[in-house]
Every structure is written in C-alpha cells, then in structure tokens.
C-alpha cells in the first residue's frame, strides 16, 4: 500500500461520497463539452451556410463601362476591355502566395445567343464547379451531364415553354433540357445555364472567361491580402472583395464563439467552486482521519498528496464521464441548433477532460493546505 492505493481504497469504499464530490466536475465538464461541441458544429454550420452566399472575390476585366453584373451585363462589343480574361488566368489566381487559402476559382462565360428563336443570355460554367459555387440552386430534373445539356432558369423555361426532357435549338445544335432551376430571385432565372465549353462554341470564342468567382477558405479570411495578391498577378483585371459577405460571416462566427466561451466559463467556475466546497467539507468531516494519519507519522506533504490523489482520481473519472455525457447531449440536442448531423467533437472532449482534472486539482489546493495544517491533537480529540 502506498498513498495512491490508500486514496483509491478510500474512494472505492465510500462510493457515494466520491460520486457526490465528482458531481460538480461531472456537471461542469458535461456542460462545457456539450456547449463547446455545439458551438464548434454551429461554427461549422454557419461557415457552410455563409459559404453559400457565394464567392468572396470577383475577378473581372478592367472596362471603361459600368461594373459588370448579371443584370447590366453589356455583352458583345459594347464593352471596351483593357484586358481579356482567359481560362489560363485560373492558374494565375491559384498560384498566388496565399493560393492554398483558395477554395474555389470558378470561371464563368456569359454570352447572348439564340435559344429556339429567343435571344437569351447563356451562362457557361464547368458542370463540376456548379454544385460547389451554387449549392443553393435547386433543380427539377437532372444536372448538366455533358456538353449538350442545359438547365433553364425558371422564367426562361416559362418563356420557352420547356420542361425537363425538352430540347433547345441554338447555332444549329440541339440541346437537351436536363432540368429547370427553381426560382432564385436572381438574374439566372431568365438565363440558360450550360457547359462553359458549349457557350464558348456558340459565341465563337476559344477560351474566354467573363469573370472568375473566387472563394477563400474562410477560417481567418485574409481576404484583403488575397485580393491584393490576385491584383498583383493580374494587372489587367479588376479584383474586388464582396465585403458584406465576408464581414457578416466573420461576425456571426465570432459571436457564436464568444457566447459559447462565456457560458462555458461560468459553468466551469461554478464547477470549480463545487469541488472546492465539497473537498473542504470532506476535510472538515475527516479531521479525525487526518489526525490519525499524522499521529502514525504522515508528513504534511503525505496528507496533501493523499487529498490530491483522491480528487485526481475523482476528477479524472468525473470529467471523462462528463465529457462522454456532454458529447452525447450535444448530439442529441444538435437538431435544436439547426445542425443537420451531430458529430463527436474529440477536441472538446479531450479539452474538457484536461480542464476537469485541472479544475479538480486546483479546487483541492486550499482544502489540502488546510488539512495539512490541522493539529493532530485537535483532530484526534474531535470525538
């Protein structure tokens, strides 16, 4: 037998008291892990949602005209481009020093062209990029499967009176209407969305790009730097950050984190106080036992280490159990917070366990000091 086993035996044979002592840590860590798991996942969810607002950065050619938008796109000769964007510029964008922060660089090519007798704007994009850059689009029917597939904007479909499976004539070619885009309220409602290669062919352009949409991985979002670097790489292009999206994204994520941290801090403070109070009570209640140990030759340090071992074991068990319970609670509660599929946040659990043990040991410092300072006589006489 040594101090460690003495501590363990004490705990095992007086389980209800050990459980009570651990309760504060269990609840504190459980709440902490639950809250931080949910916060982490909300951050993720918020990030995902905000990412869907679209690209962070727009790269367009410098023109003398008004800004290039979906509505007032001046196509076919009226714009005076200082530089033309080409497919090769995608490589330039990705090769900036902060290139690894770039999640997406999607080239779009827009052109006015005939569509079964009606002059419509055709939006060309690589089919693989479409889902990534427009995840909020909902299509009735199928996605664009190849060069001969198109998706019709809701209004375009109505104007042409076409549905999925229908066909479209343009430039002597026949396109299949793969699907109809549900109304988005944006300009694309009146457009034809097709493979970028097909739109280029219709326009007779080899590798033209109307604009690039660039999305950064937005954890810390050095958007300004990315904008500057792309601008330096492409002097003929106009690079602009879509500021409001970036800022609202950051603000929302930060707010969630602050809320989570605040609540966790309060809960942990209360948990630590509970440990302190229960251990202090234990010491009071065990005055005689401590006196006996002192009488048989325990040094003060031995008394302290006995108490630290005891709370150490309790805190470890309680915070591990609390971490498990908290993770479980987070998963159970995730639908309430708009998290589609709750996941186990290992980092939160590990941090919670470490925090719980430290809290337990910290809360034991004053009682352990007090216990070690007890006069053995007083202790033994407290009959």
């Amino acid at each position, binding site marked *: *037998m*040594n*101090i460690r*086993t*003495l501590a363990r*035996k*004490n705990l095992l*044979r*007086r389980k209800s008291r050990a459980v009570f002592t651990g309760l504060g840590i269990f609840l504190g860590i459980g709440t902490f892990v639950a809250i931080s798991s949910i916060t982490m996942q909300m951050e993720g969810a918020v990030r995902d949602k905000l990412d869907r607002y679209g690209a962070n950065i727009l790269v367009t050619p410098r023109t003398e005209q008004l800004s290039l938008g979906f509505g007032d796109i001046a196509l076919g000769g009226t714009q005076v481009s200082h530089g033309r964007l080409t497919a090769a510029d995608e490589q330039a964008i990705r090769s900036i020093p902060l290139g690894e922060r770039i999640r997406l660089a999607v080239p779009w090519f827009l052109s006015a062209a005939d569509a079964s007798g009606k002059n419509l704007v055709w939006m060309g994009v690589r089919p693989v990029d479409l889902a990534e850059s427009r995840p909020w689009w909902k299509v009735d029917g199928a996605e664009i499967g190849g060069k001969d597939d198109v998706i019709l904007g809701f209004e375009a479909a109505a104007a042409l009176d076409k549905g999925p499976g229908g066909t479209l004539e343009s430039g002597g070619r026949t396109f299949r209407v793969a699907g109809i885009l549900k109304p988005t309220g944006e300009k694309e409602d009146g457009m034809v969305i097709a493979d970028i290669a097909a739109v280029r062919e219709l326009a007779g352009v080899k590798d033209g790009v109307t604009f690039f949409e660039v999305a950064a991985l937005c954890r810390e979002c050095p958007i300004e730097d990315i904008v500057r670097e792309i601008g330096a790489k492409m002097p003929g292009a106009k690079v602009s950050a879509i500021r409001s999206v970036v800022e609202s994204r950051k603000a929302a994520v930060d707010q969630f984190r602050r809320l989570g941290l605040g609540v966790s801090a309060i809960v942990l403070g209360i948990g630590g106080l509970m440990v302190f109070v229960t251990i202090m009570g234990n010491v009071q209640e065990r005055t*005689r*036992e401590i006196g*006996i*140990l*002192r*009488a*048989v*030759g*325990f*040094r*003060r*340090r*031995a008394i302290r280490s006995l108490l630290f071992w005891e709370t150490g074991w309790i805190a470890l068990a309680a915070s591990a159990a609390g971490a498990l319970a908290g993770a479980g609670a987070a998963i159970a509660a995730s639908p309430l917070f708009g998290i589609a599929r709750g996941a186990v946040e290992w980092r939160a659990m590990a941090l919670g366990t470490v925090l719980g043990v430290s809290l337990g040991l910290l809360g034991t410092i004053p009682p352990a000091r007090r216990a070690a300072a007890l*006069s*053995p*006589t007083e202790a*033994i*006489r407290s*009959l």
Partner: protein
Amino acid sequence: MSFITLEELEMTYGSNGTSATALRGVSVAIARGEYAVITGESGAGKSTLLCILGGLQLPTGGRITIDGVDLSTLRADALADFRGKTIGFVFQAYHLLPYLTARENVMVPMAPEKGSAAGKWARADALLASVGLAGKEERLPSQLSGGECQRVAIARALVHDPPILLADEPTGNLDSGTGDQILDLFARLHGQGKTILVVTHNRANVERGTRSIHLRDGRVDEDRFLAARPAGQAGRGIPPERRT
C-alpha cells in the same frame, strides 16, 4: 540522562480570553523499558501529557527530551518522522480507518514509504498474527469486536517497531475480560523491551505496571515504583531486569 525527560512541563490551551491550563509543572524522568501507568481524575491532564509525549503537540512551557532529542527543536516534518519511528499510539476509540481492512489499517503507517507491496503486506500479516488476529486480516473494523479492533490498533502501533508505546485508556471501551487481554498484550510487549505509558481510569490496572504516576489538576500528585527497586533509585526510574 533518562530515556524520556519531562522538565516543568506547562500546557495552557487557548490564547486570549478563555484559557485552560492542563499541565502545571510536570517533571518526570522515565527510563528505557519502564511500564508507567498514569492515573487521575477526568480533566487532570492525562491525555494532554500523552499527546506531548508523543510529539502530537508541543508544551507551552518546560522541556521534553526523548532519547536525547529536545522535541521543541524539531520542525513539523521531523516531528512527524519522530512519531512514525519512535512512538506507537493506541487510543481508547481505536481510531482505525473504517474503510480499510485490518491488514490495510496496519499497513497505513507504511503508506508514505517506498518498498514492495508484498513486503508491507507480509509485515502487516505478521503483526496481526502476533496480536492473535491471524485469519482476520480481510475484515473491516465494523466486522471486528472492540477487543479485536484494539488489537489491530496495537499491531498498527508496532509497524515501525517503536521503542515507546503510548496508550490513552486503551481498555476504556472494552469489558473487563477483553480489557485484561489487551493489557496482557502490553505486558508481553513490555517484556520485549518496549517502554510503555498507559493512561487508565481503572485503578486496578495500576498493578500491571512498574511505575504509577497519578495526576491531579495538572500536577504529579504521586509517583512511585511498584516493583522492588534498588535503593536510591526511587523517583528516577531504572530499566527493568525482567525479561520473559
């Protein structure tokens, strides 16, 4: 110099306001191997004297020297080591740890020490056997009789083979038959050379010692040797010749 020397011990409890004086100038010298029986009314200062003897508290006045060491010069940890090495305590209420078995209770004083678990275990079992508790090592105090609990406490007191055994009314909670068995155990330990100081309420137990010290109101009221002593040694104490 005697093994244990008490010089003008004073003990006053409490600081300002209420204070109680438990010892008022106690001077006693005890030789190695003596068996002193301390008697006195309740409140006479017997327990206080024993606590000071065991290094559990320091007197507020006077001097206590054991085996040449002035206890007041020892710091807290050194005093703890002194208690562990030199003193074995036996209390009226046994003071066993209720959540430990008999064996574990005996092992408690060895807990802060290095050494194999098996070695400590064997030592505890040997001590329990020597006090007649072989076969009851796994029992909790609640599963032992009062006399058996006191035997466990005695075995615990003997773990470090201390030269001095201090017992504060060790038979106070026991019926007279069981109490006698405990005192037989002390007699045997005395025979093995231990210096024993026993506080008792029961005047009948005085006969078992080699010396009787009676306290009254914090003073030594009577101090006499019970066995035949060589002339001139009265009051100073000598090592006993008896060996079993």
